[in-house]
């Protein structure tokens, strides 16, 4: 089995290279996505089980939906109303509606269904024959719509640039929300090996000129291939120098984390562009590796728990009229929010050993865990499911197996199928987090829906794959009540597509963010406009 997957993948890789050089994009895509096109024609099935959404979407929108569809909005106050009529609505979290109408009022979805009455004065968009689907959510973007300021006092809201050309390109392929890491917060430049899918400083070089071939081909150090992890080799004997623990246990320090900003791709509109900030506890890779780090982390979580308890007691005492000094906050805010389960920990990890230790810690300390990269996740689907952890996958990422352990190391294209079968929710990440190729070549961030199609190719259902770029990433960020699916009460971030969302031939015809039309294919001239 292992041999066979490697062969397929290598074929795929060499195919990619050939195309890159010769430019025969169409032929490759046609071959690669034969599957995508066939399942695209399959009728939509009712969605009964939702193992891929880790946290159930709250039921509130459903009730509102019923209310919204029955009573038409009759406010006298003039609202900005847009009605998109006649398209097949892929809601992601609920059933697909054939030939339905979506009513948008002041940037929110007011009603959707086949029986929606359109109020007078509404701007109508005809989508008959088209497919409507929620805007895609990218969990790792770089320098899109926000100024990457090195200044620690800089506010994310001030750095927004709705006229950034990358915003236009992102929304042109359907990405309406992107989560961007904004401040280095911890150790600056990462040392050691670079995990695939991590922020890759493309834009600091000549974008497009340095292809991420090493990512595609899984370029690795010899030692990495032999020992599975990056280790330095002794110059005399060639044996690996193993990491040693320090003799004295260091005092507990805050683990290195970075902040994040969730930016909507509302081209030209500043209002509502910044959706949320610091939606994860973004731990730097390696910050939980080793006994000392793990002990330190346990202590921090313990301190956070104690602080929350003290704080509750203090509040009680204050309410009772006692005047006591408030408890001292011993940890960073994001640790507190992690302990309160307001955010998940997102941490890059790829090897089974790394992931296992993370899963153990998450189970022991009881917090939400999102593993970024997770190249070898297919080995430990059950463990991940038991810990209720979720992963961020890039199906096309390549990582060679360790010598002698080919059946339980390295990447496997069927990882997405394994995750689906084990009930581990996964989000899909593009090969790169920046935009450098302008949307056609299929290797930069703009290939996000294509990457999800590769999850289908690896055996996941189409519905799961679509969820992996919509509701699952939204849920990971705790924003499932705002974005990620088409439901009444949610933000009106949606796409009018001319085909199935994961089909490589599909173009976004119209993109709507916060109820505003921010992209029209015919006008924007970002992607080719021609009739097929």
């Amino acid at each position, binding site marked *: 089995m292992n041999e066979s997957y490697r062969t397929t993948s290598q074929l795929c890789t060499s195919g990619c290279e050939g195309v890159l050089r010769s430019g025969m994009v169409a032929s490759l895509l046609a071959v690669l996505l034969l599957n995508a096109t066939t399942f695209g024609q399959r009728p939509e099935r009712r969605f009964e089980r939702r193992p891929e959404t880790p946290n159930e979407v709250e039921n509130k929108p459903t009730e509102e939906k019923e209310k919204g569809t029955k009573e038409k909005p009759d406010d006298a106050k003039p609202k900005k109303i847009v009605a998109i009529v006649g398209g097949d609505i892929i809601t992601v979290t609920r059933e697909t509606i054939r030939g339905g109408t979506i009513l948008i009022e002041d940037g929110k979805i007011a009603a959707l269904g086949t029986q929606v009455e359109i109020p007078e004065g509404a701007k109508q968009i005809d989508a008959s024959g088209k497919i409507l689907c929620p805007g895609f959510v990218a969990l790792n973007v770089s320098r899109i719509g926000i100024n990457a300021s090195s200044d620690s006092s800089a506010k994310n809201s001030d750095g927004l640039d709705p006229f950034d050309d990358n915003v236009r390109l992102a929304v042109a392929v359907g990405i309406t929300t992107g989560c961007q890491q904004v401040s280095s917060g911890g150790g600056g430049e990462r040392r050691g090996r670079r995990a695939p899918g991590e922020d890759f400083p493309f834009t600091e070089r000549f974008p497009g000129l340095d292809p991420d071939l090493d990512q595609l081909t899984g370029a690795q150090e010899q030692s990495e291939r032999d020992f599975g992890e990056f280790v330095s080799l002794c110059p005399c004997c060639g044996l690996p120098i193993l990491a040693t623990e320090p003799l004295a246990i260091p005092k507990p320090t805050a683990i290195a984390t970075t902040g994040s900003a969730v930016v909507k791709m509302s081209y030209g509109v*500043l209002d509502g562009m910044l959706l949320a900030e610091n939606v994860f506890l973004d731990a730097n890779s390696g910050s939980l590796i080793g006994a000392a780090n793990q002990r330190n982390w346990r202590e921090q979580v313990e301190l956070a728990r104690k602080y929350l308890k003290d704080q509750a007691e203090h509040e009680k005492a204050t309410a009772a009229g006692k005047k006591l000094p408030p408890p001292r906050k011993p940890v960073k805010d994001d640790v507190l929010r992690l302990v309160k389960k307001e955010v998940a920990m997102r941490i890059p990890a790829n090897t089974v050993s790394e992931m296992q230790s993370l899963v153990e810690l998450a189970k022991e300390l009881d917090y939400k865990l999102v593993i970024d990269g997770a190249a070898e996740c297919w080995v430990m689907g059950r463990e991940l499911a038991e810990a209720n952890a979720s992963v961020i996958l890039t199906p096309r990422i390549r990582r060679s197996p360790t010598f002698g352990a080919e059946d339980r190391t390295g990447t496997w294209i069927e990882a997405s199928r394994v995750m689906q079968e084990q009930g581990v929710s996964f989000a899909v990440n593009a090969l790169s987090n920046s935009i450098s190729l302008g949307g056609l070549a299929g290797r930069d961030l703009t290939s996000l829906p294509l990457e999800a199609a590769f999850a289908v190719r690896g055996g996941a259902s189409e519905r799961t794959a679509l969820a992996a770029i919509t509701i699952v990433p939204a849920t990971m960020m705790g924003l499932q009540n705002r974005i990620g699916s088409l439901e009444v009460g949610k933000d009106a971030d949606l796409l009018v597509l001319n085909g199935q969302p994961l089909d490589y031939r599909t173009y976004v015809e119209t993109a709507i963010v916060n109820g505003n039309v921010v992209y029209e294919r015919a006008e924007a001239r970002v992607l080719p406009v021609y009739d097929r």
Partner: protein
Amino acid sequence: MRFINLDQLKLRCLAIVMLWFVPLSPLCAQRTLAIMGATIETASEKGTLKNATLLIKDGKIEAIGTDVKIPVSAQVVNATGKTITPGFIDPYYVVTIGRETQATETRTVVFGGRVFTIGGGAPSIATTFAKIADSLDVTKVNWQPACRSGITTFHVVAGGYAQSLIAKRVLDSDIGADVEVQEPLGKVLVTVTNETKSLDVLRNNLKPADSRGGTRSTSTSGSPFGSRGLPIGARPGVAPSSTTTANATPSPTPSSASASPTAALWADIRDGKTPVFVNVNNASAILHAGAILAESPKAKVVLIASGPNVFNTLESLDGKRTTVILPPTIDLKPNSAIRLNVPKMLSDKKVPFVFSQSLGQSDFQTHQPTPLFGPAMLVRAGLDRQEALHALTIGPAKLLGIEKEVGSLEVGKQADLVVFDEDPFSVTAGIEQVYISGAPINE
């Protein structure tokens, strides 16, 4: 008077004599000059006067009109067929005072025949206040392009956060420069981009004085979600060095309103007595600045922006509070080859605008033989002719509060004028003569 009219040689001699002796001899200076026969664009209520006479005495306009009586003692200049406009006023003439740092904006690189955009770092714009008058050496500035373009009054500005000055072209000064500082204390200028430090200059200073006490800490503490600062429990020395606190960086704004030298200036801006000049680095900065200005309803703003950036944000501009300074050129719609007449759009939307000829630096250099090429093209593309003229003359004068002195050809104002060889908005028009306070400068 026809005998002078015919005697071209005599006229030239007279002009040369005047050029040499007017500044030196008080006798000559008091002599009345009559320019007759020209079409006069007054840039005032009188509009365009055909075959009119302009009477200048002591460097001021004594009379203007078609029925002006020319005194016997007056020197007469025949300008038949020529057009006279007021001297142009540049509302945003940028000089370097050696303080600005280079903004690392998004750069475009052409490599192998392809165009790449490289994301730049955060632009660093000087956010400390400076008075341009303190550091400007007028002899070190190259005024020649401006002078050759018929500009007689300059609003001299620098990048960053500064106080401008007003300078005027002179015939001959003590220090040998073409231009002299007239009013050393001008308007407050702020350069903003989509970056907290630069926006904070606007934000913190526009806050009413009484609510500014506690703003310093809150405004610099980062996101409302926190978690960026130094962990409170962390011991000094143990804390990672990279988690520097927000408080360590000094706030660009004055900490106390009373002690600040700029407090009075900003108080006037908050009350709407004088506008604040905001140079917006990109289109998003227009939106950011607009959001900040929405908080202080009385304040008026002058936006300095490029045409495409104005086009992008046209919907957000409020004509009652905003004036736009832009280069007088036909622009391209962003990401397309469609040509735009942004001044016309502003005019249709009733947003006042004025032109700064120096803003389009390349045009400024290349179009000197025909300095009004840009405005003329805009007029050809549908901009109202009078509006274009006003945007070059009385508009900037009003913006700077010097409309009683200069900006139009009216009785009592300074006789700064430009003589064009044909209709100034005819694209090919060149400057024949410039008069500063009634004295001609041979070009």
